[in-house]
């Protein structure tokens, strides 16, 4: 029955009584009673109309909703009577539900919701897989695919519907007259990629097979670029834009929702477009990702085995090149989420722990309050209130708290999710992260179960004892409430144990993050500003033109006041792995066929690079301005490469033959110290080529070491670049420290989030501890009064009460430490330079918890020891 029906019925009763009363009055008048007395007479014979209407309504009011409304009224009144409790409970619930909902939103969007493609369950990624154990150890077993491998996979018989490939690229986008230069992230996709995914152009058309050729010049815009740069004007389709100075024809615009594989992509070109035709025939240039669609009736293992056979044949045909023996696959959704899956699950566990603690805390608060209302409840049940009614009331109360908390929490989570998505840069952006119906349902389920957990615990404990016994139990007989106290202590123990687990995890993650932060990358990191640029091959079509630009720029920057040194190279340490190339050593015996060639990271550097970045020279010399295109080819290697491939011999004067770099021999002229390509990763063998060799590099990084405040140099240097070439855009203006922090951002984020949850849990647990002890003190006031009257010392009382409060804390601590030993297994793989059972962390967690527990207990215990025995006994 709905509330308006109740309202209608109430009005109906009123009207019925009114009309009958008026009739009575009329009849009284008809019997000759004077009009002024008639009303009174009628009322006399009728009785009290208010009472009658109430009694009449009571006939109906046994219906569910009406009694629920009554419960609601009572609960709201009760909650408003103690606003402090209500606000705390609602806040705790809001925080816990909000945090849990936020993480669930992310987990659902990233791990659970199907991808927005046609039949997304049948999409898989296929990688090359090397058998070399050292590669597998470094988790390189999902290797990018070489173009020739992909073409062979596709043309040979295979069990897939189709296979498509895409590759990374970057362009300088300008208007037709070179205006408004802008560095845009791009992808090259085979012509069948969009049909395979089931994506259509919203304006224009998709690539055709004939456009997927090295001389193809078609381009598709993503919605982002279309809206931002071209104002959403559809007439752009069919017109030309310039990419790296070459004209491309816009043939279509991709839909707004299409952000695969990442949201930063601005343009798509055909896979082969703009690539030197020779590269497409290479089996060892690993730069593509392959997406395949399974046939409905073919199993993945079956389809994959055919591709594997092709790949193994290719491996045998190219024994001296880096061609993998096997292939590996994973589903598209796994592929997108793999970096964040583990941290997400850990965060979800952490937040669930916090939710549990929050619920227990609210339950604890409610148990405390229902204990304080024990007499009221006893009186009511003596007057005939049924046990179910009382339990229902408690439940309605906790439901109200949870509902208020839930609504606040969901609002909170909307903001928190937004923040999380912008801060957590690792999250795959192929799909938008947002709340939907399932998330709302999850939040509802969450708050209902939280309400049930909190409410039932409190309700059962408060109504367990019936009637007269509760009325008789005076405040002196502590025994009467022992069961309830035991329950509260158990709740506390669980709360504290969970907190300890959270604290331990947070401690380990923080220590590991701190280790990462303080890692020495092997070069100068203070006051170094970096910025990237990429000279377009069309305008700078010879090494001389490139060198002229680069050398002039370096000269001008070095002359700037405040600049200590400047370096130019492909990358700076800490900025990532970048490219790597395989090499052979002509002075060494040829490598046995069937074994993979050694490979090393590819770097370029100018003569001043190592001095500017303070990377020490161990042997030989640095580059000079004579090491440039057209001169003898030289190379510098790092210590690890020398150690690995020239053990016990002098690498100076030896040569590296690098097939990918002009297929020529490079003489080793120097050995420099190791640097880390990425914090948290082991050192890799590295080759440095002279930047003055020219060549079609992906991009260059200018690094400037300043006396102080490096960022203040960014605008003056950008102006210098604009003076030399106004069409050249500058990218990623960052200090080296910022680059390192950026690469650690995700480690720092999960560490600080877990720490946040742990600290909140600690606060919750200490509030719980404080509440329990305060309540105990209040209950035992009489008893303590008697003890003191009989001669107990204040210190003894203090010790007694403190012991009472600290016991559950100690149990919880022990339990929590034991549970942590199991729980740290989960985060083992996320730790860097930190043992999972780090004794320092465990000890400091125990110490922190004990200190907090002592403080939480001290106030009520001290209050108990201050009790005035006379006062306590008199109030009895």
């Amino acid at each position: 029955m709905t509330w308006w029906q109740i309202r209608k019925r109430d009005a109906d009763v009123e009207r019925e009584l009114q009309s009958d009363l008026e009739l009575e009055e009329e009849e009284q008048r008809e019997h000759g009673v004077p009009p002024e007395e008639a009303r009174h007479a009628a009322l006399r014979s009728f009785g009290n109309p208010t009472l009658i209407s109430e009694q009449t309504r009571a006939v109906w009011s046994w219906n569910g909703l009406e009694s629920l409304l009554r419960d609601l009224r009572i609960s709201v009144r009760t909650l408003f009577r103690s606003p402090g409790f209500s606000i705390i409970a609602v806040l705790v619930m809001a925080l816990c539900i909000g945090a849990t909902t936020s993480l669930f939103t992310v987990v659902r969007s990233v791990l659970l919701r199907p991808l927005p493609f046609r039949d997304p369950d049948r999409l898989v990624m296929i990688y090359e897989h090397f058998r070399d154990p050292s590669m597998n150890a470094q988790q390189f077993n999902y290797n990018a695919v070489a173009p020739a491998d992909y073409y062979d996979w596709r043309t040979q018989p295979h069990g897939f519907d189709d296979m498509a490939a895409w590759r990374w690229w970057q362009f300088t986008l300008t208007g037709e007259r070179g205006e408004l230069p802008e560095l845009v992230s791009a992808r090259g996709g085979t012509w069948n990629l969009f049909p395979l995914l089931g994506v259509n152009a919203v304006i224009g058309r998709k690539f055709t097979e004939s456009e997927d050729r090295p001389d193809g010049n078609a381009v598709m815009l993503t919605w982002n670029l279309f809206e931002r740069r071209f104002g959403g004007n559809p007439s752009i389709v069919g017109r030309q834009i310039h990419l790296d100075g070459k004209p491309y024809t816009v043939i279509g615009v991709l839909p707004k929702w299409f952000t695969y594989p990442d949201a930063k992509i601005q343009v798509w070109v055909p896979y082969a477009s703009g690539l030197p035709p020779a590269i497409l025939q290479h089996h060892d240039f690993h730069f593509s990702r392959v997406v395949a669609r399974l046939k409905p009736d073919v199993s993945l293992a079956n389809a994959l085995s055919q591709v594997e056979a092709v790949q193994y044949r290719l491996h045998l045909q190219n024994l001296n090149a880096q061609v993998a023996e096997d292939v590996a696959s994973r589903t598209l959704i796994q592929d997108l989420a793999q970096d964040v899956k583990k941290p997400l699950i850990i965060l979800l566990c952490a937040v669930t722990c916090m939710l549990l603690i929050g619920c227990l805390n609210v339950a604890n608060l409610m148990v405390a309050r229902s204990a304080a209302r024990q007499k009221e409840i006893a009186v009511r049940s003596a007057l005939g209130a049924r046990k179910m009614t009382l339990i229902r009331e408690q439940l309605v109360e906790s439901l109200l708290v949870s509902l208020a908390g839930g609504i606040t929490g969901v609002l909170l989570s909307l903001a928190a999710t937004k923040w999380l998505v912008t801060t957590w840069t690792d999250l795959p952006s192929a799909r938008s992260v947002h709340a939907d119906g399932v998330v709302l349902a999850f939040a509802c389920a969450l708050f209902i179960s939280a309400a049930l957990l909190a409410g039932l615990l409190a309700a059962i404990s408060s109504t367990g004892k019936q009637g007269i016994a509760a009325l008789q139990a005076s405040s002196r007989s502590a025994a009467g409430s022992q069961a309830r106290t035991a329950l509260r202590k158990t709740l506390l123990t669980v709360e504290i144990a969970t907190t300890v687990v959270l604290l331990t995890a947070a401690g380990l993650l923080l220590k590991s993050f701190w280790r990462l932060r303080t890692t020495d990358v092997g070069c100068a990191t203070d006051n170094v500003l970096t910025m990237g640029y990429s000279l377009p091959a069309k305008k700078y079509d010879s090494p001389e033109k490139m060198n002229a630009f680069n050398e002039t720029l370096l000269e001008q920057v070095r002359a700037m006041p405040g600049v200590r040194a400047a370096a130019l190279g492909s990358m700076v340490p800490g900025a990532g792995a970048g490219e790597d190339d395989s090499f052979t050593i002509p002075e060494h015996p040829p490598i046995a066929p069937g074994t993979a060639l050694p490979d090393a990271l590819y770097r370029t550097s100018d003569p001043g690079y190592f001095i500017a970045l303070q990377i020490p020279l161990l042997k030989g010399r640095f580059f000079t301005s004579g090491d440039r295109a057209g001169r003898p080819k030289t190379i510098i290697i790092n210590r690890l490469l020398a150690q690995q491939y020239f053990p016990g011999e002098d690498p100076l004067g030896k040569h590296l033959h690098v097939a990918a770099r002009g297929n020529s021999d490079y003489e080793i002229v120097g050995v420099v110290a190791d640097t880390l390509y990425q914090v948290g990763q082991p050192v890799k063998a590295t080759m440095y080529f002279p930047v003055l060799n020219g060549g079609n590099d992906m991009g260059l990084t200018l690094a400037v070491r300043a006396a102080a405040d490096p960022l203040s140099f960014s605008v003056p240097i950008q102006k210098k670049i604009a003076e030399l070439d106004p069409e050249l855009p500058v990218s990623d203006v960052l200090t080296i420290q910022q680059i390192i922090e950026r690469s650690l951002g995700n480690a720092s984020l999960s560490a600080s989030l877990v720490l946040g949850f742990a600290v909140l849990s600690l606060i919750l647990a200490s509030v719980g501890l404080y509440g329990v002890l305060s309540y105990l003190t209040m209950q035992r006031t009489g008893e303590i009064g008697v003890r003191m009257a009989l001669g107990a010392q204040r210190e003894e009382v203090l010790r007694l009460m403190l012991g009472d409060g600290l016991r559950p804390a100690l149990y919880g601590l022990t339990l929590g430490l034991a549970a942590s030993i199991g729980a740290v297994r989960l985060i083992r793989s996320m730790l860097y330079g930190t043992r999972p059972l780090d004794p320092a962390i465990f000890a400091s967690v125990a110490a922190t918890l004990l200190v907090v527990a002592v403080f939480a207990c001290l106030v009520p215990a001290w209050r108990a020891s201050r009790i005035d025995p006379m006062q306590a006994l008199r109030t009895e």
Partner: protein
Amino acid sequence: MANPKQQRAGLLQGTLDMLILRTLLYGPSHGHQIGKHIQRTTNDFLQMQHGSLYPALHRLEKRGWVVSKWEMAPDRNREFKYYRLTDKGRKQLVVEESQWKQMAEAVARIMWPAAEES
């Protein structure tokens, strides 16, 4: 005051429902009429408590023994809430009547055993 010292009996628990149902057998009537009818028929012996009449009417309605409808009274130019017996109510009346008869006979046998013997 109108009937000073007159003996008035409260209704025996459970009989009110039966009396109302019986009254409604004459045709639909509103609360006031029902009360007045019971009072008048028993020569004011059964005093109608409005505090039990209306809850009883609603209880009967809830159980589906009577239905109610606002209708124009023929003699007064006003609407009253008329109660009407349902088929379910007629059946219930039979049940209650027979129960009452058994009860009355049982009581009578104890109170006037001689009458039973004769």
